[in-house]
């Protein structure tokens, strides 16, 4: 390279840096794949304020869509169930629905009810997990302990029904693999009442407890129009008042036979999300109680041949985090031609990037947790100050402490 060329490229480089001259670039993540799901965010800061967020995901991309193309239809159902360790059932449910649409067989009514029960139990467990983590990141450890204790109640029920706590493997094509154990109705109804009571109590707490109010109120605001444009799904659409819930918009399983209404809020901040998810738990508990008491008799499964007729079909359903979408294409063989799966966090990421703009570093954990992502991204943060060329790294706990000190300086000192 001649000297002249070298000069220009250096000039261009410094011009590139000049763009961020008054701002800091903060790489956020990626993290320890073994523990939590990693995402990586490059935060561009202006002092404490975030002006731009650039995402980079894929650190645990396992190529499921490619793998599905060489596996039998049935095997894929249990593989896709392993996409997520929290909302696993709904993945196999949606994939199953997409494949069932290509066949001529109908799902028995009893199986539809059992699917509804397990899906709602999963929603309660996922929302409880989220409320607990929200308490942890906001600095309210007691809430975390309480909520995770209550989560065991749901997990015990799931274990009693399916035999597993997380990967239920309940689904089969055109039905479910296991029938509901007999004599469990009263127990389930009683536990659901307990959980609804607890959710009501937690609603009171988050409304009165200063820690939660200070860390969540007025945070993460977005307008309904922007949320709609960014294709937000699930609670991230409902907390600004959009009535978007596949259970109601496009009923699947037994949702058209169960009376329920979805919850929406209009405030559009993280505090509204907290109350929304707690309210949704109560709705889910009522759905489970109703479905258990009105469980119809009949077969739980129709056996279908291993070869699926040619065609293409898509299906979507409401996971705890929002809309899950599956598209399948069959060429009439024993393996799919193409399977496309889209998870709700992917759909909510553009919205999260939008609401992060204008927040401070101290609020990053709370706002990012608010979309209910996989929290891996908070494991480690490294900072780069372009002006002084200073670089430092924070671990998740240090970031949490920074957030706590920022909001409650006195209390942190006492500890």
């Amino acid at each position, binding site marked *: 390279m001649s000297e002249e060329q070298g000069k220009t490229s250096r000039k261009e480089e410094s011009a590139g840096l000049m763009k961020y001259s008054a701002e800091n670039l903060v790489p956020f993540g990626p993290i320890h794949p073994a523990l939590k799901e990693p995402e990586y965010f490059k935060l561009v800061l202006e002092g404490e304020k975030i002006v731009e967020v650039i995402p*980079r995901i894929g650190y645990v991309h396992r190529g499921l869509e490619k793998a599905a193309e060489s596996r039998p239809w049935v095997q894929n159902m249990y593989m896709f169930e392993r996409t997520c360790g929290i909302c696993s059932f709904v993945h196999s449910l949606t994939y199953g629905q997409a494949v069932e649409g290509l066949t001529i067989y109908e799902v028995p009514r009893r199986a539809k009810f059992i699917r509804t029960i397990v899906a709602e139990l999963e929603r309660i467990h996922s929302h409880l997990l989220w409320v607990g983590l929200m308490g942890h990141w906001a600095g309210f450890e007691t809430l975390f302990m309480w909520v995770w204790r209550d989560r065991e109640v749901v997990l015990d029920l799931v274990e009693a029904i399916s035999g597993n706590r997380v990967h239920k493997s309940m689904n089969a094509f055109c039905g479910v693999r296991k029938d509901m154990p007999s004599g469990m109705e009263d127990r389930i109804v009683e536990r659901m009442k307990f959980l609804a009571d607890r959710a009501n109590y937690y609603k009171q707490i988050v409304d009165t407890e200063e820690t939660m109010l200070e860390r969540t109120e007025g945070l993460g605001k977005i307008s309904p129009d922007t949320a709609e444009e960014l294709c937000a799904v699930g609670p991230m659409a409902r907390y600004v008042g959009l009535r978007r819930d596949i259970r109601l918009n496009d009923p699947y399983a037994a949702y058209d036979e169960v009376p329920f209404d979805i919850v929406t809020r209009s405030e559009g901040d993280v505090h509204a999300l907290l109350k929304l998810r707690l309210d949704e738990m109560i709705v889910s508990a009522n759905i489970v109680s109703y479905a258990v008491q009105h469980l119809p008799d009949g077969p739980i499964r129709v056996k279908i041949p291993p070869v699926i007729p040619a065609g293409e*079909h898509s299906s979507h359903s409401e996971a705890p985090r929002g809309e899950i979408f599956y598209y399948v294409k069959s060429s009439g063989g024993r393996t799919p031609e193409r399977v496309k799966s889209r998870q709700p966090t992917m759909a909510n990421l*553009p919205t999260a990037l939008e609401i992060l703009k204008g927040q401070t570093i101290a609020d990053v954990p709370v706002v990012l947790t608010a979309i209910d992502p996989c929290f891996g991204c908070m494991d480690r943060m490294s900072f780069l100050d372009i002006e002084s060329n200073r670089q430092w790294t924070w671990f998740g706990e240090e970031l949490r402490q920074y957030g706590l000190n920022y909001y409650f300086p006195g209390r942190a000192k006492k500890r």
Partner: protein
Amino acid sequence: MSEVLLQQIEKLAAEAKAKSTQLRKGETMVEVDQTQLKNFVKRLVKETLARHLSTITGLDLGQNIGIIYHFWHERNTIHVKTTVPKEKPTAFSIVDIVPGAILYEMEIHDMFDVEFIGNPWMDRKLLLPDTWPKDLPPPLLKTSKPAEIRKRLGLEVERK
């Protein structure tokens, strides 16, 4: 409600000279030419209620790469399908119409090497590693084999 939406879509499809087929009840497939796609999506989003984009799917169709945009409203799903040639896979980005499409387009860019004109983030990767070799075929094409990818990326595990 759904009847009105279906009529609207059929009208839009006819105006864009696109083929519209009813796959089954509540599911419509509209095959649009790449040049007409942006206009069609714009009118679909602005004039009908089907404005929520679920995702974008890429497909290996042999000679071509298929791109399907999945929209829905209530009980109706609308698949908008378009194709781009495999030799020169460039498509028009719809990010200016549906901002939520940005990550889905990046995903197809990674997995099928389709260049979306107008997407501001086409210069970076979203899912694939930064060290992905340039001469390796994009992973979701039927011609690329997982064993070869593992070997090239140094992920081959020795079996005892």
